[in-house]
């Protein structure tokens, strides 16, 4: 070998210790011309500072095989001899029988005697050639392990993200099996711990496109495969063969023949006993090794936590739902000659209940008691107080139907309760009695308990505030309570609303009050609207004013005199266009 053979050739990947081209001329002329086994003596005219290149080459991490033009091995370095013991000097390289060394287009990397080898073939002068052989086993193993680990973390991160939100339990179960495919399995089956003798299961199967097919079903607890039962008891069954048979018998592995399938069962940890078990199955060509099982276990831990949270959430939501239902305003009862319209938007949307309330009760004489109000405070506590208040009214209206006297009774009852519990809660409200007349008109007698006065939409289009004042309910023993009587002709409407409407903050900067003037403007031209549409309009203009800002509870109750007869809407004519009014809802 001559230095000229390799001079100026460097793959440039920094891994190969090729002598630098710049230094080459200094030693090229005197380099040994005939490499042989053993170390050639130093040229006598060299200073002892000059290294012996053959000796240096022998210590490369890469092994060297130099062949002559006929393919006969002329030099074999110690490293090469160790990595490729089949290669012998002075015989053709082909006789070693290592295809990758002699085939020109063979892959540069191959596995030989359990080592991963990388070969570079470099042509030298005079038809000779050199093969550089490197043992890359460790670096390949390291980078493979790194890639695998990265894939695992990425997979678990996605799983954590998808299962990290509270879900409906059924959704969570479906998500668990869907996420397991295809990373963990071709078919994954989740069996929940049986309740009342029945076990629900979900299954995801890989399909041609990347979206798995998910289905579900129910099995009697007695029909569960033994391996599943074992898993539900917290054990991880290891006898893998019969596990596959059982899963096939249960009909869970369509398209996977028993003898070609590898399957595992892992319990999903719950609070106490496992919440369920996960069965993963795929073709036996990719059997589950210990690392795979670790990943399945890590997945099962997250799935178990998600399912437990989901069930806990559902149970609590059921309780909350039941309680909420009793605190939600009840739609007014149908009453002769009255069309009701309501709108209700609590401040805390997720809660759906708040401190505003409305309702009605029918009286024996054909009239109805109706009310709308607002209690101090917000949220759940306020909602609970509205519930007490509505129950009080439900009982009290049977003994007293005169609005002012009824409101006084209510005041006394509340005062007694709040004094007993030291809550100090109070309410504002309008409480009225509506009575229909033969001509289709309505008489409304209303008592004011410190609430915003109602508005009346007259047939001519005027919007009149009703003069009604009074003191808060539930604060002092003998409050001043206002009283007013309003007559609604057919087609006229009385509107009750809470301060969530007029005190809505919005506008340009989000801090301007909506105010009563804007409400009156918004109602102009609406006097012939059906009551439900009118209530919704008030809700809509208020919410539009708010933008997406925070707001107080909003409640609206509209009563419209529908007139007599079944065709009580016949008097509705085209609504005249209000002058100079321009609105901006599409």
């Amino acid at each position: 070998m001559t230095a000229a053979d390799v001079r100026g050739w460097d793959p440039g990947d920094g891994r190969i210790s090729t002598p630098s081209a710049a230094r080459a001329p200094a030693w090229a002329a005197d380099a040994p011309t005939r490499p042989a086994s053993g170390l050639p003596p130093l040229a006598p005219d060299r200073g002892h500072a000059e290294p012996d290149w053959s000796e240096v080459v022998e210590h490369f991490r890469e092994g060297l095989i130099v062949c002559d033009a006929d393919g006969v091995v002329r030099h074999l370095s110690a490293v090469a001899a160790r990595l490729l013991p089949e290669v012998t000097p002075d015989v053709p390289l082909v006789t070693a029988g290592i295809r990758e060394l002699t085939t020109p287009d063979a892959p540069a990397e191959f596995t030989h005697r359990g080592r991963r080898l990388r070969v570079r073939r470099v042509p030298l002068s005079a038809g000779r050639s050199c093969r550089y052989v490197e043992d890359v086993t460790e670096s390949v193993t390291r980078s493979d392990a790194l890639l695998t680990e990265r894939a695992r973390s990425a997979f678990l991160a996605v799983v954590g993200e998808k299962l990290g939100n509270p879900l409906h339990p059924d959704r969570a179960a479906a998500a668990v099996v869907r996420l397991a495919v295809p990373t963990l399995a071709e078919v994954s089956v989740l069996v929940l711990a049986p309740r009342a003798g029945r076990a629900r299961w979900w299954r995801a199967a890989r399909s041609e496109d990347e979206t798995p097919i998910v289905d579900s079903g129910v099995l009697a607890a007695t029909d569960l495969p033994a391996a599943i039962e074992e898993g539900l008891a917290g054990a991880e069954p290891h006898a893998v063969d019969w596990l596959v048979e059982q899963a096939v018998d249960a009909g869970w592995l369509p398209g996977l023949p028993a003898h070609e399938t590898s399957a595992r069962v892992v319990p999903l940890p719950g609070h106490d006993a496992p919440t369920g078990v996960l069965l993963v199955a795929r073709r036996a060509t990719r059997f589950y090794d210990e690392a795979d099982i670790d990943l399945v276990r890590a997945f099962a831990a997250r799935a178990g936590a998600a399912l437990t949270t989901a069930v806990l959430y559902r149970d609590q939501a059921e309780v909350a739902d039941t309680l909420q239902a009793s605190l939600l305003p009840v739609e007014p009862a149908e009453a002769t000659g009255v069309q009701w319209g309501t709108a209700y938007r609590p401040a805390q949307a997720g809660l759906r209940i708040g401190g505003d309330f409305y309702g009605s009760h029918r009286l024996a004489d054909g009239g109805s008691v109706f009310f709308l109000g607002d209690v101090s405070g917000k949220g759940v506590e306020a909602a609970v107080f509205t519930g007490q208040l509505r129950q009080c009214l439900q009982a009290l209206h049977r003994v007293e139907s005169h609005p002012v006297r009824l409101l006084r009774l209510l005041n006394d009852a509340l005062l007694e309760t709040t004094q007993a519990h030291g809550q100090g809660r109070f309410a504002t409200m309008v409480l009225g009695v509506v009575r229909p007349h033969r001509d289709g008109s309505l008489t409304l007698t209303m008592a004011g308990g410190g609430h915003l006065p109602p508005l009346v939409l007259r047939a001519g289009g005027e919007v009149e505030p009703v003069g009604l004042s009074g003191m808060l309910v539930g604060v002092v023993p003998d409050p001043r309570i206002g009283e007013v009587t309003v007559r609604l002709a057919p087609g006229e409407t009385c509107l009750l609303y809470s301060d969530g409407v007029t005190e809505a903050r919005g506008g340009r900067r989000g801090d301007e009050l909506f105010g009563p003037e804007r409400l009156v403007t918004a109602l102009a031209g609406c006097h012939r609207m059906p009551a439900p549409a009118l209530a919704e309009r008030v809700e809509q203009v208020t919410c539009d004013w708010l933008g997406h800002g925070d707001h107080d509870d909003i409640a609206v109750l509209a009563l419209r005199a529908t007139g007599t007869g079944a065709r009580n809407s016949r008097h509705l004519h085209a609504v005249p266009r209000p002058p100079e009014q321009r609105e901006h809802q599409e």
Partner: protein
Amino acid sequence: MTAPAIETDPGQAFSRYLDCLAEADEYAAIEVARGLLDAGVPAERVLLDLVAPAQAEVGERWARNEWSVAQEHAATHISERVVAAIAGRANPRPTRGRVVVACMDGEWHALPPRLVAEVLRLRGWQVTFLGASVPVAHLVSYLHRHDAHAVALACALPMRLPHAHRMIEACRRSDVPVVVGGRGFGEDGRWARRLGVAWAPDAPTAADLVADERALRRVPPAELSHLADDEYGGLLKRRGELIDSALADLRDRVPGMSSYTGAQLDSTVSDLGYIVDFLAAALYVDDASLFTEFVRWLVEILTSRGVPAGAVGMTLSHYRRALHDFPRAGRFLVAGEALVTEVSHAGR
């Protein structure tokens, strides 16, 4: 009220139905629908060929300033009652999973999604209609408590697209697939694609999509990399200041404004706000056509109410000057101004 003639074609009954809406005659409107059902017209056709086109016509009459908002609301209310009557008559037994139908937060056009809800119900789904302007928190808590197969969300105004996106993401986090519909996503649903969500142009398509859960889950991801320039967020922060300065600018240039009533001023302020909000939505989905379509619509609406197109042009150029360091918004505003010029020349 005479007894309705028996008609078997929703198209023929259409004009009578519109008359009922114009007269705000709920009972007559219900009778028109009942007549069709009695004659054997399927409920789905009555909903889609009678109620839906009538509602579209109501919207156009409002846009042309022929009907007031009050009339529009009354007509919509009556159509809702008609839908309820039709649904009550058909009353199908649910055989499939639960589907939740809702309007986006801030969205009040509840009739189109109500029609979708009823079509789904007629096709055997157990449908929950949550109504107009559903807060995200309300929808999410509903999805936690009830196993929904899918959520159908409606959005009529492109202005609400950023909120729509938040709502869609919230549903996704609950692992419930979403299908969206309504004009808010563009005539061809292009902004739904931008947000990475399945879109249906009409109720039957929505019903078909809901029936194919895998198709719902197979949507390409959202393409919102343009949001990295933060123009959307920056514009929202400057919203109040922009509206204030635009109002001051208009006061300087339009002498008549000094005599505006409070209501007129409010309405001007809300128009100025809509321009910013539509611009923000256009930035969100990075599509100038969202903004120019809005400008075209706004000019039409204002012109039909006696406000000249030039006033819109003035505000657009004011915003453009104020937003000189927002290159994308600047391009959209220039496109809007060009449109105003074109429309006002065509109008002459």
